């Protein structure tokens, strides 16, 4: 137990140092070293996680988790914002894979459709229109890189230790049997069951979410319309538009 805590603390230290080195700080120096340190930290953390049982499950999980976390770190540390968005897209794909792993097919597809298909592409649009060449001074500098790296990684360390303690020390409750899971969240008619759940128990919440979406749509339209140059408007409308037959 003591051993495990030492390793976690070491991983946290190395991880925050690595992340700090990788974050944009003006120059290019230390990025590779930072990446190496972060990988070591990741390995140390991985050595402290419980095994999943079979090799296939272990391998698939490890690959997906690695893609997710590495892409997340790259998304945060890349200089070019377009690359940030692409790495975040890879994070999303990794997350979708993890959702598939726990049997949440609908979530996996919905995440890709909504996040990758709509949100991220509109981000890319705004990015490309705003700074098509993708080079800006403020992307090469960070606010308080050291402080935020330490904060974030220490948070991860604390969460990990807490999760480990809470899940191992007293078994929180009996894990469900494989057969029960097969009949439950992994059942073949997964979407139908999820739909029944959504539109049965959570009907009011669905309605509220729909209203929220509509409100957001209207709000976005209003915000965009207000920023518009009014002079441009007048040109498009009456003053200059007199068609001559």
């Amino acid at each position, binding site marked *: 137990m003591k051993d495990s805590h030492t390793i976690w603390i070491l991983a946290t230290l190395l991880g925050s140092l690595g992340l700090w080195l990788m974050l944009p700080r003006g120059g290019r120096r230390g990025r590779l070293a930072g990446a190496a340190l972060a990988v070591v930290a990741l390995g140390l953390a991985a050595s402290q996680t419980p095994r999943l049982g079979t090799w296939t499950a272990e391998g698939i999980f490890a690959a997906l988790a690695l893609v997710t976390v590495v892409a*997340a770190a790259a998304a945060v540390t890349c200089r070019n914002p377009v690359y940030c968005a692409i790495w975040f897209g890879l994070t999303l794909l990794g997350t979708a894979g993890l959702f598939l792993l726990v049997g949440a097919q609908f979530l996996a597809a919905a995440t890709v459709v909504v996040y990758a298909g709509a949100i991220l592409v509109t981000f890319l649009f705004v990015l490309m229109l705003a700074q098509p060449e993708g080079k800006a001074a403020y992307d*090469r500098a960070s606010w308080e890189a050291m402080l935020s790296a330490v904060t974030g990684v220490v948070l991860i360390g604390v969460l990990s230790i807490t999760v480990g303690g809470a899940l191992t020390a007293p078994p929180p409750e009996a894990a469900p049997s494989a057969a029960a899971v097969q009949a439950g969240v992994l059942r073949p008619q997964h979407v139908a069951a999820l739909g029944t759940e959504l539109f049965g128990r959570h009907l009011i919440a669905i309605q509220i979410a729909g209203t929220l979406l509509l409100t957001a749509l209207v709000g976005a339209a209003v915000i965009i319309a207000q920023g518009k140059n009014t002079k441009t408007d007048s040109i498009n409308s009456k003053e200059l538009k007199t068609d001559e037959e």
Partner: protein
Amino acid sequence: MPAELALLHNLLLVGAALFGVGLVGFLCRRNLIVMFLAAEMMLQGVSVSLAAWSRYRNDFGGQVLVIFIIAVAACEAAVALALVTALFRRRGDLDVAVWDRLREANQPPFTEAPLPEQPGAAGESWPTLPPAGVAPAVPDEKVDYRRYV
């Protein structure tokens, strides 16, 4: 440790990592859109944890919550992107530092630290064409009348 519990444990760790990395990005990046991406990443971390709990508890509740998270994230993206576009129109810059006038009265103003020159950025070696799209000098009476059609 049984396999289901181990899966939950590992997924919670991944969720925590996503949340933490997203937090770092939100705290330290200066590009408005990258900050926003980092915030979405934190939401993803929470979603992973919720889906893991849903599997462990053998209950669809967690997945339903993730669906709501996705819906809220879509709303948030729409509004925030509209805001970012509006802000960009005002200042022509995606940097959050240009909005430092919104700081509290007792906070120091933002001062830009000089950045070292990026190697390779200046001496680009490929031949570059003159920029297209620059308006030629035309007399006023010949101005392109369909610019705003």
